[in-house]
């Protein structure tokens, strides 16, 4: 326990340091003494003031909570389905959000600031309902993931069909949104994501023993007094809400939920409480730094953050497969 506590403490410090370090990165040249003055008292330079308080800090805070949220969603899905490959991306949640965003973009010309996230959220919820419905009909836990993949492809094909016939400007907007970016986030997004995140974390901490009981099989959990179906449905709902909120503001950021819990299992442990807290911290660190890469690796342009996470994620996927082959 001591070792776990030390690791978690070190990670917390690392989250804070990462967030602080990330403020120094960006296309505008702001030297460190100016930065410190801005953070501690008030800025002399009004441009620096805007850049730091309205661009960089909201962006870092959103990266922090989005990383936490996506990693936690993956961790919850993996433990409740006993499948280490479960990820919100694979459950069709992101494709659902993509379809919702596409429909909003094509049918509405303006007023997108509220309509786009809302439509993405509804789309994500829609896909989860379909996945749960299919799994319920099939009555097979192992097929929940397969159902998710099937639904994901179905919704993606509908999205592409609409985009193909859609107006080029709107199509462009959607395609860029699907790649994921933190470039347009604001402080209000941080508040919305944080509130969903807090509700999710409190629920999972409340039910951590129930979720742990699932790790040894449904029958074992049921014998310990767990209502397995209800618990799994609740957890799926929480993951959907969490992912949908994040995807709505930040677009498609894949594979965070798959990668981070794997690292946490190696580092801290497999039971839910450790996994959730560890995933939140490592997820936050990960996304803060990926966003730093996204906005500062090219001189006059940004790389969409989803491209970087997907590239890292796919390599990670292959690594897991290679390793599991080596073990068996």
């Amino acid at each position, binding site marked *: 326990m001591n070792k776990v506590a030390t690791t978690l403490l070190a990670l917390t410090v690392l989250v804070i340091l990462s967030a602080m370090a990330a403020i120094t990165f960006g296309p505008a040249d702001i030297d460190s003494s100016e930065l410190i003055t801005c953070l501690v008292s008030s800025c002399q330079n009004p441009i620096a003031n805007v850049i730091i308080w309205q661009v960089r800090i909201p962006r870092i805070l959103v990266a922090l909570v989005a990383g936490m949220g996506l990693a936690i969603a993956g961790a919850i899905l993996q*433990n409740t389905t*006993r499948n*280490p490959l479960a990820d919100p991306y694979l459950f069709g949640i992101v494709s659902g959000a993509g379809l919702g965003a596409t429909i909003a973009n094509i049918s509405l010309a303006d007023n997108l600031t509220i309509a786009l996230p809302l439509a993405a959220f509804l789309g994500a919820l829609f896909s989860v309902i379909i996945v749960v419905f299919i799994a319920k009909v099939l009555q097979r836990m192992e097929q929940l993931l397969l159902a998710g993949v099937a639904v994901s492809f179905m919704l993606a094909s509908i999205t592409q069909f609409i985009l193909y016939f859609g107006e080029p400007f709107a199509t462009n907007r959607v395609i860029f949104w699907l790649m994921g970016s933190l470039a347009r986030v604001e402080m209000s997004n941080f508040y919305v994501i944080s509130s969903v995140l807090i509700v999710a974390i409190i629920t999972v*901490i*409340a*039910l951590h*023993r*129930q979720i*742990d*009981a699932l*790790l*040894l*099989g449904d*029958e*074992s959990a*049921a*014998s*310990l*007094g*767990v*209502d397995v179906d209800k618990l799994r449905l609740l957890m799926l709902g929480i993951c959907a809400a969490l992912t949908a909120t994040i995807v709505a503001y930040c677009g498609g950021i894949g594979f965070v939920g798959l990668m981070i819990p794997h690292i946490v*299992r190696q580092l801290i*442990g*497999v*039971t839910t409480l450790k996994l959730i807290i560890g995933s939140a911290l490592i997820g936050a660190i990960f996304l803060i730094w990926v966003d730093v890469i996204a906005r500062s690796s090219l001189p006059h342009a940004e790389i969409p953050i989803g491209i970087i996470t997907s590239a890292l994620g796919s390599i990670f996927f292959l690594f897991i497969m290679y390793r599991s082959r080596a073990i068996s």
Partner: protein
Amino acid sequence: MSTLLNISQLTWQVPNKAILQDINFNVRKGEVIGIIGPNGAGKTSLLRCITNQNNILANTNVTGSVQLKNRAITKYSAKEVAQHFALVMQKNDTIFALSVQDVMKMGLLPHKTLFSLDCDHDKAQINLALKKVGLEQALKSHFNQLSGGEQQRVLIARALVQASQVLILDEPTNHLDVFYQHQVLQLVNKLNITVIMTVHDLNLASLYCQRLLLLNQGQLISDGSPEEVLTPKQLSQVFGLPCQQSIDAMTGAIQVSFYLKNTDKQQNQYSELVDE
């Protein structure tokens, strides 16, 4: 001994088949009961009904009653049922690297509220239970890396942490070699709690159970001590094979052996053995 469980007129009917048919019996506190019978006789189904797994008694196909301490089991919440019954299953599928400690902590669940963390008392309880099954050094080991017998013993220890009054085991000796079969059953016997288990091996059942229930095609054929239940006549009827009974010289327990009808040579050998 006071009556703990009362099963009366329990019937589970599915189209064209009765899984369980008019089952009646009582379980007294402290009894070690073995449920025996051929494959598909309804042994596991009976266990599922006794513990009302997945609220099975609410199913319209199931009639009759199961009473725990003179109160219908359906009136107990899932958590309360878990406080009375601990289940050790045949198969545990986990792919994650759970430690023995993680598995043991699951046993605390029926006694914990939301948000609760582990306390020192829990740790002491876990250590005590592991000591009782002889695995106190395995606390930090990976559950998946233990042998089948050790896994069974961990799950029995988990049941002890669960502090239930009845231990339910479904084929506890499946997949275990002879040494572990005896070790696990001996352990179960020494715990001084009520045990209901399904057992395939009749001679093990005879050796370790005070009372046997013989099921066949969903019916309770016989209920009594091993001497009363393991009679050649009843067993050959149920299993469809001629059967011989003998007394084990070492333990004094009833032992039975079966042989195929068409081999006269074997039949002679068995008769000779009995004659001796």
